[in-house]
């Protein structure tokens, strides 16, 4: 009996492992200043499964959402390029961060206040839809820090 239980337990945890597939962490939206109709959404993707693609994003806070990549030319001119999808290779860790890839939330339906949580759905080509909670960060709490991610005030 004990033996069967052990096997069952092992199988269960096995199943959980393969189920893991894609993880979405550190999901946050930068507080939108008043007057702004757009905001940026950032997150980290950890792919423990096979090759996949982010194909779209949805959130009740905005009319639409697009995958963008910020590019800055050597002469300092910046622009955002719309991406149709983003490849997340097997075992790949991918960060959407300020100055790089981000989700542009277009035509905000409401004012986003620091500390609020909003549901975001990320649609993957193979793994399907995954819903996560995004926290709104203000400019004094990480929304304006340097790339290193550490606060410079000691």
């Amino acid at each position, binding site marked *: 009996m004990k033996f069967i239980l052990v096997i069952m337990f092992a199988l269960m945890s096995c199943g959980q492992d393969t189920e893991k597939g894609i993880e979405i962490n550190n999901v946050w939206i930068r507080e*939108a*200043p008043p*007057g702004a109709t757009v*905001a940026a959404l950032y997150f980290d993707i950890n792919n423990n499964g096979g090759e996949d693609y982010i194909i779209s994003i949805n959130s009740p806070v905005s009319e639409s959402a697009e995958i963008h990549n910020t590019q800055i030319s050597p002469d*300092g001119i*910046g622009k955002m390029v719309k991406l149709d999808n983003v490849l997340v290779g097997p075992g790949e860790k991918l960060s959407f961060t300020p*100055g790089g890839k*981000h989700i542009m939330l*277009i035509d905000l339906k409401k004012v986003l206040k620091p500390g609020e949580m909003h549901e975001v759905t990320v649609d993957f080509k193979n793994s399907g839809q995954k819903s996560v909670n995004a926290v709104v960060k203000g400019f004094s709490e990480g929304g304006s820090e340097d790339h290193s991610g550490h606060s410079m005030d000691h």
Partner: protein
Amino acid sequence: MITSNKVRIISLILILFIAIISVMAYLIYQAKTKETFNGFYNEKVLDDFSLKDSSGNDVSLSEYKGKLVLLNFGYTSCPDICPTTLGNLRSIYTKLDNNQDEVQVVFISVDPDRDNPEKLEEYVKFFNNDFIGLTGNEEQLKEVSDIFNIFYFKEGIDTDKDYLMSHPTSIYLIDREGKLILKYPHNTKQDFVVDDLKRLL
């Protein structure tokens, strides 16, 4: 005879040593006085220009003479670059404490079609009440672009109301005489800018 030779050698070494030290000290001194700033040194005399503030008043660059000006370009429908820069400027400005009145932060919108003065005002003041938002008509903005040797344009189809824009991402530091002196690439460490400002204050 032997001892005087020794003295001669020792004094020669001493003289040489002093000479090397002096040259080194001079080089260090020179490097320091040449101001080794964190930003990219980019000296340029700027022609005066004028743009509109939120009350519809004309504001010209020369009005800020006597202050250091931190200037950047963007548009309020920019979710990534502009909030990052203004967020950084907000922190930089806060770190200046009691020197704040000697520094003016100016945000120039290159998207006057969507950024009317009221909207721009609300946007800029959110970061800091002392910040100023300016914009102008195409002609005025063209003049400013020529002065700073920059460019900006709408991306994609003009009829789309959600168009994106290409625009300069650097912060420009203008000295008290109205001369451009330093340029900071996008997302330069806040303390790098603060250090330079403190040297100039």
